[in-house]
Structures are given as structure tokens and as C-alpha cells.
């Protein structure tokens, strides 16, 4: 039962959990969301470009990534990235890539598939008159995307993008399978060292829950505000 619940073990582990673990988790989440958004927008533009081949490639990539479990993708990139690095740099042996770089590449590539679907929906929600007006003003395709379509698409999709980022934040805990010290990894290391699984896992659950709850509450507020403006 919970009668011998030890709060002190959590208190002592706090600096390690947050300075090491949470910093890793949040940095990974932020960079992966940014990278995934950029790459995902590129994929969405490829799909909507009107060039059959480009659209096909992007579509295949998205469907492929979305039918695989994230854990498998994490393993794939963990083993594949050193070889790709070797191929790119022309080194004589597979280069060693740090845990952070490897998981960052994984999450960017994986999340791009999901972000691209969101951005595609966002771009398609812009009325046809907008790009038409842009080209009537003499804007090139790139300019009309950059100044007219994408800003609106991004704004309309902001709540969904943030929701996806919350999912991403939770999913980063899966780097556990590579024994990386993210927030959950740090909690698990302390748990195993001190034999305090109950305290550490419950605490980790509470922290993830609180952060995600606050973020999704923010999304709901944002959604309400955007809904009024439109």
C-alpha cells in the first residue's frame, strides 16, 4: 500500500529529473516540432504542387511513416543514421551520432508525416480566391505561399498543430527504448537505483499529466479566441 510512500526520494531527485531529464525532453520536443513543421509543410506543398510525381513521393512517405509504430522507427533511425552519415560524409566507417541527434532526426522525420497532413488540411482550407488574388497582384508562387497562403493556413491550424505537439511531447518518452535520459528515462534510472518504482513513476505521471493538461487547456482557450475572429 502507499503507507511507506517516500516523498524525500522525489525531492532529492528533483534537480536531476528537471535539469537533465526535462531539459532533454523539452528541447527535443521544441526542435522536433519546429523541424517537423518545416519538413511537413514542404511535404504538404509537394502533395499540393500539381506535379504528379512529387505528390506521389510525398504521399507515399506520409502513408509509410504513419503505418509504422514509433518504437520501430526509433530503432530504424538509431541504427540507420550512422550509415547515412558515413555515406554523406564519405567516411570509411559508420560515424557515431549522439543520442540526442539520433532521436531528433527520428522525431523530425516521423512527425513531419503528421504535421504535413495538418498543413495540407490548412492549405486546402484557404479559399481559392486568395492564391488567385496573389497571382493577380504579380506575386510568384513562392511569394504567394510565403506571404498569403501559409501564414493563414498556419494560423487556422494553430490549435491542431499545438495538439499534435502535445502528442509529440508525450511520445518523446519513447526514447526510453534507447536508454536515453529524457524525463521518464531519468525517473526510471532513479527508480531502479533507489528501488523506488512507485514514487518515481507516479511522480513522472503527475508531471506529464500536469504539463499536457495545462497545454491542452491553453489550446481550448486559443480555439475559442480564433473561432470568434473567423
Amino acid at each position, binding site marked *: *500500500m*502507499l503507507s511507506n510512500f517516500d516523498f524525500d526520494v522525489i525531492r532529492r531527485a528533483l534537480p536531476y529529473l528537471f535539469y537533465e531529464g526535462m531539459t532533454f525532453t523539452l528541447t527535443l520536443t521544441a526542435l522536433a516540432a519546429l523541424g517537423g513543421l518545416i519538413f511537413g509543410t514542404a511535404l504538404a506543398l509537394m502533395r499540393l504542387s500539381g506535379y504528379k510525381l512529387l505528390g506521389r513521393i510525398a504521399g507515399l512517405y506520409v502513408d*509509410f511513416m504513419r*503505418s*509504422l*509504430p*514509433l*518504437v*520501430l522507427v526509433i*530503432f*530504424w533511425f538509431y*541504427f*540507420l543514421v550512422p*550509415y547515412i552519415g*558515413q*555515406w554523406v560524409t564519405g567516411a570509411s*566507417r*559508420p560515424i557515431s551520432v549522439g543520442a540526442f541527434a539520433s532521436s531528433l532526426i527520428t522525431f523530425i522525420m516521423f512527425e513531419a508525416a503528421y504535421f504535413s497532413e495538418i498543413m495540407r488540411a490548412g492549405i486546402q482550407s484557404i479559399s481559392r480566391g486568395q492564391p488567385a488574388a496573389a497571382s493577380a497582384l504579380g506575386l510568384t508562387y513562392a511569394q504567394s505561399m510565403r506571404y498569403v497562403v501559409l501564414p493563414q493556413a498556419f494560423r487556422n491550424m494553430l490549435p491542431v498543430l499545438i495538439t499534435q505537439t502535445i502528442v509529440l511531447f*508525450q*511520445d518523446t*518518452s*519513447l526514447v*526510453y*527504448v534507447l536508454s536515453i535520459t529524457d524525463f*521518464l528515462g531519468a525517473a*526510471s534510472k532513479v527508480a531502479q537505483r533507489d528501488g523506488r*518504482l*512507485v514514487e518515481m*513513476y*507516479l511522480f*513522472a*505521471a503527475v508531471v*506529464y*499529466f500536469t504539463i*499536457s*493538461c495545462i497545454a*491542452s487547456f491553453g489550446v481550448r482557450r486559443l480555439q475559442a479566441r480564433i473561432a470568434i475572429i473567423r
Partner: protein
Amino acid sequence: MNYNWNWGIFFQPNPMGTGTYLDMLLSGLALTLKTAALAWIIALITGSVVGVMRTLPSKAANWFGFAYVEFFRNMPLLVQLFLWFFVLPEILPKAAGLWLKQLPNAPFWTAAIGVGFFMSARVAVQLQAGISSLPRGQKMAATALGLTTVQGYRYVLLPMAFRIILPPLTSEFLNTIKNTAVAITIGLLELTGQARSMQEFSFQVFEAFTAATILYLLVNAVVVTAMRFLERWVAIPGYITGK
């Protein structure tokens, strides 16, 4: 690339003495499907109950449904599995905890229950959306005909709502299959787990993961095709998917 490809590895005997490496992966696939099936049953049943609760006129039921969904949606699946696997046996009364710990196949049951409840929150949200997408007149007509609330849901609202949310439910089912891979962390040797141990035994990293990837893609294709048929079979005339 100086990597030694060896596709013949699948037909070599595995070190566990359970046949070839291919047999090992296939047994992983079977376990993935079994876990996903049980998890999906749990998700569908509890998710439907909670989803209905969120649309009931009762404030308490609404609130419970809301809290349930937030609870299961705002924690990573991995953390939830750890709670079920490591924490639950400790905080239960001694005897029950001991029984849980000695359960044979504990990773399987934990994974099915953990993934099941995790997905149930998503099913609940979909069903709620489905029910509230129905015209208000449906519920009123049911009441006017003298149906009780239970009958109204049973004969009018749910048959419509489930048909409407069939496409999103398909992707939730696919997510259930994919999410069983997370159970590798509690020692469940499902497809990803078997691919990983094959890689550890044989050092043929890319062959193992390629095979697992192909198997996942196949499962995906089969499920999507089967659900297409189901969708066409239950479609309501006059609706977008209907004839």
C-alpha cells in the same frame, strides 16, 4: 556502405530453438495481433460507455466522461504501461498485488489493458463527436416515440453514430496495433520486440527491421481493405458513404 547483407538469415535457426528467425518474427506478429485485438475490445467497450456518458443530459455523467478522457489522454502511453505494470501491484492490498505479480503472461495482460484504456479515451472522443453530429431531431423523435433514454441510444443514436465514425475508428484501430509496440518496454515480445531480439542475436539489423516493417505494412493494408468493405456493407443510403 560496408554492411554485410544476409537475407538468408530468416531461414537460419534462431538461438531460442523455436525454429527459424522467420518463425520468431511471425510469432511476434501473432502476439501483436492478439494484444491489439484484446486491447481493441477493451477500448471499444469502455470507450463507447464513456463516449455515451459525455452526451447524456446528466451533469455528473458528463463530468465523469470529461475527467476520464483527460486522465487517459494527458499521460504518455509508456508511463501508463509503467503504472499498470510496476505501480499497480504495489499499491493494491498485499494479496492482490502478489497475485498480479505472479500472473503468467503478465506483460501480455498489462499491454492489452494499458493500450486498451489508453485507446478507450480516443474512442470515447470519436463516439461523442459522432453522436453530437446527428441532427437534434433524432433524439427528440426517439423521445416522442416513447423510447426511454436507453432505447433511444440503442435503436436510434448509436447505430447511426457508429456508422458515421467508422473511418476514424479504423485509424484508431490501426493506432491500437501500432501502440502495442510500446509494450516492448515491459518485455512483451511482439513484432518490434522480436525484430529487436533478432537484431541482437544475429547482428543483421536492417534485415530484421525491414521484415518487421513489411509485416506492419501488410497488416495495415489488410485492416484498411477489410474496413472499406465493412464501411460499404453498413453504409446508410442517402449519406455520403451510402449508395
